[in-house]
């Protein structure tokens, strides 16, 4: 029987242990309504936030935030509606997190765009919704469960909205399509919807002007005014017929935020690190990295090449790195699989290489427009044979910038492939951040031969794969005199001759390559969050990558229940900082490993590398959506109660 540190928090309204767990469709998360109820007791203090009473069946609301969503068919301009609203809120000074739900088709289906605005930094799109703008019934059907009790639905009265009986919502039909038609273009209903939203949350129309100008300015003043007019018409309708029925949080004191997605931050970090070459094949959700560099490289003399496939892309990046430019490729799961042979080439030929993997639902084509964290095994173990590799996993958009920049240093210092792994939810969601510290970007090109050093050598005496204590051999770059070498996919000796007969050469070179990472300690990328030392915890939650904000919010909910929960977050996965991870796992009574996949790949990795099999529990989600805080909360409660 496990210890009961906080029996009070384990009590249900009806008494006794929780047996009412049921599964949400296509998710492995168990939600338990009575547990929910317990979690919603009034009067529990949450650090720096006020807990508001919420209805059973709906997640509780944390004050200081506002959640809005627009949904409809793809091709209706849902994205622009969401972008204009979220960008405006960011410009006004709110912390914003946006999340796009979309399908792998161009017209039809269902797409939605969630905007969460807060008075504090947020790392999660939020569990709930105060206002839903519905362009069709499907939007209501798909998203109603997120709406808080008495939440607002603004629907286009071109259709008749239906809400299940007994569901308490405030339903307002708005003539979005009609007003847009009056303005001469039905697609303008997006802007009308933004205008109605403005009225409903109490924002003036003019607050949107700078966003509209930035977006439509190059199409001329007439287009800007037409959009402003649509906004105004929507606003007037909203003000007259609905009024302000929702409230935005207080504006934070510091109001200058960068609004940036993980993909943009990766691309920006690469540029900042001196990367001037991207070879990639378009793939959701990684293509925005291409877009950003296509836009920004010309000013700095860089090149983006759209390769014919990912095999070509990675080989091009390897060729470019070999020839001395900082180069990378970016992709998602299917492309990553195609790249595996060449990852081994980079390892064997000791060519620096940065590969960005923006994970999506796998396997195969899988869920092209949904998020998942299921590439970990491939990143850790992929390619035939054995190579040194480095795996970095940014948790935030700031990380995307800093860790990508650092990836180029690591790739050149260790002359091996470096993965930067994110996922769709991090890559494609814009987030407001306080800013980036550019003084943290440093450029370290590792061990390079100088022309003077090469000139001092006898002719032809340079050895590219020279056996050194660190395993790293100084690199010459094509174009340098007397630095001739052949980069090799075949095993070779230290001079780069591949037709070797003796087995000892193989062993010497293998050891040389593999020991390069011996001194690489990535423990600075393992973070512990918690007021208590690990030995005082009820539970340690371990996560990696994009789940950080969701885990933190779940832990706040658990803290409100009186549990002591710590959080260990891994932003570097290979080489695994074992000592640091072991220290926390050893001390914690139970460990819950949270990850967006079915098999628990990080959990398995920790069992193999660190141990503690009996303590490790998993919280897995693989339906394509990122975690909600409430899902992690529920699973953690289950472990705490039954563990």
């Amino acid at each position, binding site marked *: 029987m496990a210890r009961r540190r906080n029996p009070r928090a384990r009590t249900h309204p009806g008494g006794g242990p929780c047996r009412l767990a049921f599964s949400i469709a296509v998710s492995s998360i168990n939600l338990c309504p009575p547990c929910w109820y317990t979690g919603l007791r009034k009067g529990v203090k949450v650090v720096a936030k006020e807990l508001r009473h919420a209805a059973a069946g709906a997640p509780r609301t944390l004050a200081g935030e506002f959640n809005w969503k627009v949904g409809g068919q793809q091709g209706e301009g849902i994205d622009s509606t969401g972008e204009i609203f979220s960008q405006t809120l960011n410009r006004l000074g709110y912390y914003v997190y946006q999340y796009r739900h979309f399908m792998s088709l161009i017209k039809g289906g269902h797409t939605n765009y969630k905007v969460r605005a807060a008075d504090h930094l947020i790392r999660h799109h939020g569990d709930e919704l105060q206002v839903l703008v519905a362009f069709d019934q499907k939007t209501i059907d798909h998203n109603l469960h997120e709406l808080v009790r008495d939440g607002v639905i603004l629907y286009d009265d071109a259709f008749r909205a239906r809400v299940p009986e007994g569901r308490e919502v405030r339903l307002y039909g708005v003539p979005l399509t009609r007003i847009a038609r009056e303005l001469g273009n039905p697609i303008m209903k997006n802007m009308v919807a933004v205008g109605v939203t403005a009225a409903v949350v109490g924002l003036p129309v003019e607050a949107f002007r700078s966003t509209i100008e930035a977006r439509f300015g190059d199409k001329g003043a007439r287009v800007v005014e037409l959009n402003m007019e649509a906004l105004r018409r929507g606003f007037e309708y909203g003000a007259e017929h609905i009024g302000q029925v929702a409230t935005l949080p207080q504006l934070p004191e510091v109001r200058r935020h960068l609004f940036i997605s993980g993909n943009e931050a990766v691309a920006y970090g690469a540029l900042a690190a001196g990367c*001037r070459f991207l070879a990639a094949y378009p793939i959701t959700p990684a293509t925005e990295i291409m877009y950003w560099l296509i836009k920004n490289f010309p000013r700095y003399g860089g090149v983006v090449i759209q390769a014919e496939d990912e095999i*070509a892309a990675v080989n091009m990046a390897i060729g470019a790195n*070999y020839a001395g430019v900082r180069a990378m490729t970016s992709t998602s799961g299917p492309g990553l699989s195609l790249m595996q042979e060449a990852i081994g080439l980079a390892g064997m030929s000791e060519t620096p290489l940065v590969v960005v993997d923006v994970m999506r639902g796998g396997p195969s084509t899988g869920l092209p427009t949904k998020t998942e964290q299921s590439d970990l095994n491939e990143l850790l173990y992929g390619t035939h044979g054995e190579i040194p590799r480095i795996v970095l996993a940014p948790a935030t958009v700031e990380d995307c910038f800093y860790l990508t920049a650092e990836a180029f240093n690591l790739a050149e210092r260790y002359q091996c492939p470096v993965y930067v792994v994110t996922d769709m939810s991090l890559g494609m969601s814009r987030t407001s951040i306080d800013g*980036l510290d550019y003084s943290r970007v440093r450029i370290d090109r590792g061990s390079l031969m100088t022309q003077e050093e090469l000139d001092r050598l006898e002719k032809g005496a340079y050895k590219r794969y020279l056996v050194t204590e660190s395993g790293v051999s100084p690199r010459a770059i094509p174009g340098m005199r*007397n630095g001739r070498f052949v980069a090799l996919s075949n095993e070779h000796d230290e001079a780069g001759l591949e037709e070797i007969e003796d087995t000892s050469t193989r062993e010497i070179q293998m050891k040389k390559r593999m020991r390069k990472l011996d001194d690489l300690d990535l423990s600075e990328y393992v973070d512990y969050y918690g007021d208590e030392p690990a030995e005082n915890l009820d539970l340690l939650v371990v996560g990696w990558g994009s789940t950080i904000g969701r885990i933190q919010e779940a832990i706040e909910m658990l803290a409100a229940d009186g549990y002591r929960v710590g959080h260990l977050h891994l932003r570097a996965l290979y080489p695994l900082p074992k000592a640091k991870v072991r220290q926390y796992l050893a001390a914690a009574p139970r460990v819950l490993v949270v990850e967006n996949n079915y098999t628990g790949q990080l959990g398995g990795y920790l069992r193999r590398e660190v141990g503690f099999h009996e303590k490790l529990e998993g919280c897995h989600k693989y339906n394509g959506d990122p975690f909600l805080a409430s899902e992690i909360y529920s699973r953690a409660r289950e472990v705490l109660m039954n563990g």
Partner: protein
Amino acid sequence: MAKVADFRAARPTWCPGCGDYGVLNALTRAVVNLGLEPEEVVVVSGIGCSGKISQYFGAYGFHGLHGRTLPVATGVKLANRELTVIAAGGDGDGYGIGLSHVLHAIRRNIDITYIVMDNHIYGLTTGQLAPTSDKGMKTKTSPYGSVEEPVRPLELALAQGCSFVAQAFSGEINHMAEVFEKAIRHKGFSLVNVFSPCVTFNKVNTYDYFKERLVNLDEDPNYDRHDRHAAIKKVLETGGLVIGVVYEAEKPTFEDQLPGFPEEGLATRPLALNEADFAELEKQFV
């Protein structure tokens, strides 16, 4: 100025009589005639007997994966356009596993010379069917005779609009060196298919086989190598059994058309951004 000896490297282990010796010799003569220094040249090679050429040729080399010479060569050229980049491999490498890269390299017209040592057989793996093996050819993997039609590299390259298409033969090294010189001098993507007999595993497409059949277009004063239609017609008429420059056209290269792409090699430029750069870039994120 570099001499032939400056381009010598490891001693080749090809079978005596292998056509690839001819390619190595002709390539060495070509770069010497062009006045290139060893550090100015990169040879990216594939997998197979022919792929070993980067070991034996005394310039910078990259011996990569099977079929992926052109992507690596593309990366090298874009990283440092001041380098002379030569991709070299066999027919399996270029027309089998790596065929799509050939077509896309042609589309881009990037300034690379691509030499394919075409022996109609898989040699290093001891005699299996190749993509250029003739229909009916008996090999270890086609013991009853191949039922597949061969890839026709010249037709493919011409159809795709390759800006320089040539063919050479290991039995005529002087001519091959001339063809290589022209190919390297050509600004844009150049394909040189070389009949390079495998003396061990292909007893059909021998030196004599080619000697009896090949027509040298460079010796034909009436042949207009700038006329693509005539080139296609000639290749169809001869079944591709020609040597010399088959087609040549002036076209802008990939690197010349890239916006903001510098004249000097990317690899030679400074990396760090300054505060003004960051301030400007940040404006995109409001």
